[in-house]
Structure formats: C-alpha cells, structure tokens
C-alpha cells in the first residue's frame, strides 16, 4: 500500500490516475439526488455501499453513458455486466443484428450511443453488409476492443489513414526503402495496390502512440506481437486481430476467455432457482 511509487506522484496526478475524483464526485452527486431516501439509513452506509459496488463493478448498471465511459474501470465493469446479463442469449445460439445488440446494450444503459455499436459491428463484419447477423462472442470481443480503447482506436485510424496516404507521422527521416513514398501523395486508390500498410511501419507508429497516449491502450508488447505475424494488414484486419487476441483480453480482465465465454456457474445456479 505504502509503496514508494505511490507517494512519488504529485497530488493531482495521483488522484487523476486513479480516477479518485470521478468516483468521489459521482458519490456526492448520487447523495444529493437521493437525499430523502439515504437520510433514512445514514450517509456512512451510503458511502460503504457505493464504493463496494464500485469494487464489484455493479455501479454502472442503468447509469447514463457519460458515467459509464468516464473511467477504464467503469468500462470494464460495463463489459462484464453485459456479458453476465446476456451470456444466455449467446448460449442460446441466436444470431442477432447490430441493432438488436444495441437494444440489449440500451437495456443496461438507456442512452448508449449507436455509433459505438456500429463501429463495433464494423469490426466484426469487416465494414461490409451492416445488416448481417453476428454471433454473441464475435460481437462481444469486438465491442470490448471498440469500447474500452475507443480513443486509442481513433488515433490508430488517423495514423492508418496517414500511412495509406503515404505520409509518415513519425519523423522526417524515412528509411530509404520507402523514401519515394513520403514526398508524394498518391491518391488513396492507388496507394493500396497491396492492401493495407506495412506491418513494421505501422508497429513503429503505434509504439510511439502508446508512449504518448494519456488514455489506456493495449499492452505495447502484445500489440507488437499482433503486428509481427503479418507483412501487411488493413485497419479492420488489425482490429479483428486485436479483438481475437487472448492476451489482450486477459490484460483487460473484464471478460473470460473465448472458450469459457458461455460458462458462468454462479449465474446458472441463480437461473435454476428462478
């Protein structure tokens, strides 16, 4: 607890990193909202319950989207809650459309934005035929990547576009092999005679991004691993690879492995009781 690194950070930064303020603010806000009800059993109990639920990951249930998105822990909790509640849908084998998954999301968060779900669906369907049906596990893992790392993915998309256009966002000096590229700006259509971008170049850019990025990003080592397997890859190909990577999933810690996705003995027991 009293580790030296913890004390090394100046105050605000420490608080910001742990998102302590977010939770404190939200707690006080909830207190204000429900004054009459909470005054019945005391403020101390309220705070206990609140932070307990934060720990357990149930604090995001039926909350507004701005809160759910606020911290990585919230996002992970939401993913886990979604998995828990609708695992049965997946188990049943139903294939649903993007809109229906969005509907299920809305059951837990009434103002969840459609764009996020659409982006997640694009990952699964490779930006093709948006009305296609998707399996629960495909959607869930793609959604995880999209939702948890949404800001990171936006930056990645920008980098990808730049690379496609022949611009290297990194440094002025470019390895001689691709020196021909960076001065010209060939029209997008011609740039990909070969699809996508060079994996190694991409990997370099992403490494820099991870260093700079304030928001969470996947463990750089794993990202490198993903990119080292291929020569070239497209944007959605990259995302699909991310979503299917076990290591990243485990690093996130929200969802079980793909193999165990349908297993949840505790909930199954509850279900039997109903």
């Amino acid at each position, binding site marked *: 607890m009293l580790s030296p690194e913890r004390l090394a950070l100046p*105050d*605000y930064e420490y*608080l910001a990193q742990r998102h302590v*303020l977010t939770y*404190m*603010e*939200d707690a*006080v*806000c*909830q207190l*204000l*909202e*429900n004054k009459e*009800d*909470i005054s019945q*059993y005391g403020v101390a109990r*309220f705070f206990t*319950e*609140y932070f*307990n*639920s934060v720990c*357990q990951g*149930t*604090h995001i*249930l*039926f909350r*507004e989207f701005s809160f759910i998105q606020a911290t990585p822990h919230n996002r992970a909790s939401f993913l886990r*809650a979604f998995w*828990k*509640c*609708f*695992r*049965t*849908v997946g188990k*049943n084998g*139903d*294939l*649903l*459309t993007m*809109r*229906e998954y969005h*509907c*299920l999301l*809305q*059951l837990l968060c*009434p*103002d969840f934005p459609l764009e996020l779900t659409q982006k997640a669906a694009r990952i699964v369907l490779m930006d093709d035929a948006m009305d296609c049906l998707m399996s629960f596990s495909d959607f869930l893992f793609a959604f995880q990547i999209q939702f948890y790392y949404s800001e990171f993915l936006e930056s990645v998309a920008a980098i990808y576009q730049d690379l496609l256009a022949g611009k290297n966002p990194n440094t002025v000096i470019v390895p001689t092999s691709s020196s021909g590229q960076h001065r010209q700006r060939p029209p997008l259509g011609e740039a990909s005679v070969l699809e996508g971008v060079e994996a190694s170049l991409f990997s370099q850019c992403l490494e820099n991004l991870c260093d700079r990025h304030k928001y969470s990003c996947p463990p750089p080592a794993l990202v490198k691993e993903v990119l080292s397997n291929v020569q070239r890859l497209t944007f959605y190909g990259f995302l699909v690879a991310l979503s299917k990577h076990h290591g990243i999933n485990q690093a996130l810690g929200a969802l079980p492995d793909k193999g165990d996705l349908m297993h949840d003995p505790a*909930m199954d027991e*509850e*279900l039997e009781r*109903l």
Partner: protein
Amino acid sequence: MKTTMSSLSAFGDSSIQTPSKSRIRQGCHSAGPNVSGDHIHLASSSMPSFPILQRSSEEKILYSDRLTLERQKLTVCPIIDGEEHLRLLNFQHNFITRIQNISNLQRLIFLDLYDNQIEEISGLSTLRSLRVLLLGKNRIKQISNLENLKSLDVLDLHGNQITKIENVSHLCDLRVLNLARNLLSHVDNLNGLDSLTELNLRHNQITFVRDVDNLPCLQRLFLSFNNISTFESVCCLADSSSLSDITFDGNPIAQESWYKHTILQNMMQLRQLDMKRVTEEERRMASVVAKKEEEKKRESHKQSLLKEKKRLTINNVARKWDLQQHRIPNIAPNQDRKVSDSSQDPSQLHGSTVSAFPEETGSLDSGLANALQGLSVTDTHLVEVDGDTLSLYGSGALESLDRNWSVQTAGMVTTVSFTFIEFDEIVQVLPKLKIKFPNSLHLKFKETNLVMLQQFNALAQLRRVDQLTIDPQGNPVVNFTLWKYYVLFRLSHFSMQKINGTEVTQNDMIMAERLFGILAHVASSELPQYRMISILGDARKKQFRYLLETKGKKPGLVNEENNDSKRLVGENTNRAMLNYTTRDVYNERLEEIKEKKKFCKMYMEDLVKEATEINMKNEALQKLWPQMFIELVRDAVIEIRNKNSYMKLCLQQITDQK
C-alpha cells in the same frame, strides 16, 4: 284443288257458324264442271290457287253479316265475293299462311284468324272498321301494318313470336291487348294507347316494364311467368293511378321475401294482386314493413357517410404521421389545407360531441347510442368505440381519454388500438387508460415507433394485459429476434395468452426466463439499496403524481392504487427495476443533474484543495521536523547543563507565576 261436299257438310256441324250450303270451289282456267250446289259462282281468278267462296243466297240472307270457315283445312284465304257487308269473319283452326283476299270486306268488324300459320300481319289496310282482330297462335314475328285500323278495340296476338311492342301508338281506341306467350323481353313504347284497359303479357321473357304510366286507362296488367326480379324494373307501375289488378306470379320477384309488401306499398291503388283481393290488413303490414326498410336504408346511408368520413380522417392522420417521420417531403399546400380545415373543427367537434355523448344530452335511447360508431371525427385525429374496441388514430386522440366516459361504454371496452401515435406519448397516458378503461385486456400498436425492447417496460404499470398485438408496420422492434421473449419476460406477471395472434406456450415462457432471467437477477440483487429505492421510488412517485393531478379523487381509487403499489413491491420486484423513461424525460433529468454535478465538482475541488494543502503542510513538516527536533533537544540540553543555575531559574519561574 277441288273441295268436296263432305268437307262442306262438316261446316254445318260447327257451332256459331252459318249452316252452310256454301261451297268453296277453286277457280281455274279450265273451268271444270261445278261440284254441286245451287249457286255456283264460277270465278275467274288471276291467281290459280285461290279458291272462291260462294254461299247460297239463303244463307246469305240468314247470316248476312257473319261467315265462319273454321277447320276447313284452308291454306290460303279464299276469295270472298259478293259479301261486302260481312261483319264477322272466322278463319279459326286452318293452315292459312297469309292474310289475303279480304280487302274488299270493308265493313268487317270482327276477324278471327286464331290458330293458323300466318307469319306476317298484312292485307288489313282497307279494314278501317275492324274492331276485333284475333291473331293468336300464329307465327307472327312483328307487329306491323296496323296503321289504318284506328277503330281497333281488341287485338289478340298471343302465342306468336313477337319480340317487340311497336307500331301500336295510333290505336287510341284499343281496350284489350293480348301479347301473352310471345318472345317479348321488355315492355316499352306504350304511348298512344289511351283507351287500353287490359294488357296481357303472360308467359314472355320480360325483365323490365316501362311507360305503363303513359296508359291512362290501364286497369288490368298480367305479367305472370316472366323474368321480373326487382321492383325497380317495373317501377313505372307505381305511377299508374288507374291500375287495380296486377299479376306477378311465376316471376322471380314473387319468390322474394319483400315481394308482397313492396308491391302493396308502392301501388296503393291495387285491388287485386295475383288474382287475390288485397285486404286492409295486408296493406297495413306493407306500409309498416316499408317504413322499417326506409329507416334501415337511412341508417345504412348514414353509416356509410360516417365510414367515409372516418376513412378520410385516417388517411389524413396517416399523411401527417408520415410527414412527422420524415418519410415524405413537407409540401406547403398541405399546411394551408390543414389551417382551413381546422377552422371547421369546432363545428364538427360540437356536432359529433352531441351525438357521441347521449349521457350528457340525456335524450337518445341507448340502443341507438350503441349503434353509433364514430364518436369524434376531426381532421387531425379519430377516436372510435366499436363495441369492445377503442381505436385511437393520431396523437390528438389521446386527449379523448380525459373525457367522461359512461361506465357502461368504458366497461365494455376490452381492446384498445393505437395507430399513428408515438409510443412515448402513449406511455404518458397509460395510467389514465388503466383507470378509465379497467377492462382493457388487449392492446394493439400500429405505426407507433416502437424501436427499443426497453419501451415494453412501460407496459408493466398496467393492471393486466392478456393479448398484445404489435403490427410490423411502423414498429421496427418486431424485426428483432428476441422481442417476444423479452415481452414475455418483462410482463410475466400478466400471464399473457397471445402475442400477435399466436398462443403463448409454456416453452415460450421458459425460453424467455432462460434468456433474460439473469438480467432480472442482476437488476435486483446486485444493485445497491439506495439505487433500488430510487428506481422504485421513481415509479411510485409517478403514480402518485398522476393521482394528485386527477380531480375528484374517489376513495375507492386511492385504495386501488395502494393495492397496486403493494403488488408491485411484492411480485416481481426484480423485474420492477427495469423501467422505461421516455427519451425526453430522460434527457430532462440529465439536464437537471448537470447543475448538481457542477456543484459536486466544485465541492470536491475545494475538498481536494484543502486535502492537498494539508498534505503539503504535512510533507513540509515531515521535512523540517528532524531539524526542529534536534534544535529542541539541543536547547533543552543547553538549559540543563548547569544544574544549580537551572534549579534557581525554575524556582524563580514558579514564584513569578504566583
């Protein structure tokens, strides 16, 4: 052809006929020896085949005006000489094919050619005195060549092949016209027969009758065994004041249930129908029945008007809905029409309100009130109660739930149908629906913009729903695979029987629980208590707010509400967590919270500032403390170095303090 005596004697046997000693002898160039008889007239005729008739002068004197040539096997009319004063001529039962050789008999009054083979009416143009012409049972195809027979009194053309009534308009003295057993398909062209009293049209193929009202004297009309099936086809009869006797038997119309009274009602002047006297009783019955029919017709006319109005309104509402949904571009003229129409609204509304609420006017009988269908018809919305169904079209219709519905009407309603109304708006009036129409068990939604499963949560507040029908048109939610299961899950406390017409099976219920049971469990058990209370509290708050708003709270009602809320807490609390707030209300709430959030943020910032200041001070103290401690210790040690002087100093200090 020579005739023989025997045939002549046969003449004598027939009844009316003249005891004839007359003979008919065919005239020929080679005038052969005369057959017999005293008076033989050798006729030289230009036509080789015509026989020449001769009578004895005795006969001529006895029966000077009549001549009977019945059953004489005549194939042609014989030439009749020297009988110019003849008044009656009988050619019955022969084989005559053409009327000829009688032009000279200009005094003829009675001509009987019944049962011959005549194909055409001809040769009568000189018989200006003719009064009775009997041409029955011949082969006449057309009525013609009667121009000069202006004195004709009786014309008998029955049993021929006549297809059309024509060329009779000049017979202004004709009293009896017999056209039975012909091929007539209709009757018209009857003008000019100003004296006609009897018209026999039995056994034809007549389908309609016209112009009978142009016959001022017609008393008897026989239409038996024709093809008349409606009264409209003979409606001119109603206008004939002279008719007293009519027959329709053997027509399709006579088989109809309304036959007798329709005829009697429309022809008050009739004395005999189908050869039976018309009694006063029958006439009375007929008028009663006719009045009832008139009423019915008026009613159905009114209904069809109402229906048309309804249809127009629904179209209008649909159009408005489509505009709202941005399905069709907004055209300016539409707006103008609505403005001009809305100015009509007040009068329409008043007009229909009076008819719609007999309870308020208190005069109409309940039977009629129930029969009235359209209750409120304006151009922008429509409310209709049809027995057990309440139909609402257009969002304006929702206001009608505020009206004072009679207990009887409201109690009968079991189905409520919403069309062209946003579901979010319907949600807001559901509490009213629950109270005003307590027996509504079946809800139907069409074009109501149901897009999220969450919206079904709103239906949980109703008392009971047996059946739910969500029309795919205008309700995208139906496209989801899981929507039915979600409905069954969320509204499980209703034990619904049917969804969209299909029965709900036990398997469906089990599947619904299996799919969404965990959601309910999570919602109820994993939420912190204060959240549960606040969510439940919201629902209860809404109900009580509505109650407070409605004026004239009945005590019974309050108890009901308490029961409901008790039930809410007892049953299915886990589901009760799943609420639906309409988008607008939700956004409103988020707006409200923004203020609080800002305050919280500021408050926390203050706290943080305080905490960091304290923390800084603490850290600073931590840094300085070792130094300070050493100095403290050093000072103390220096002070105590000289024991004696320290003791003296302390004592001094104590005495100073006193």
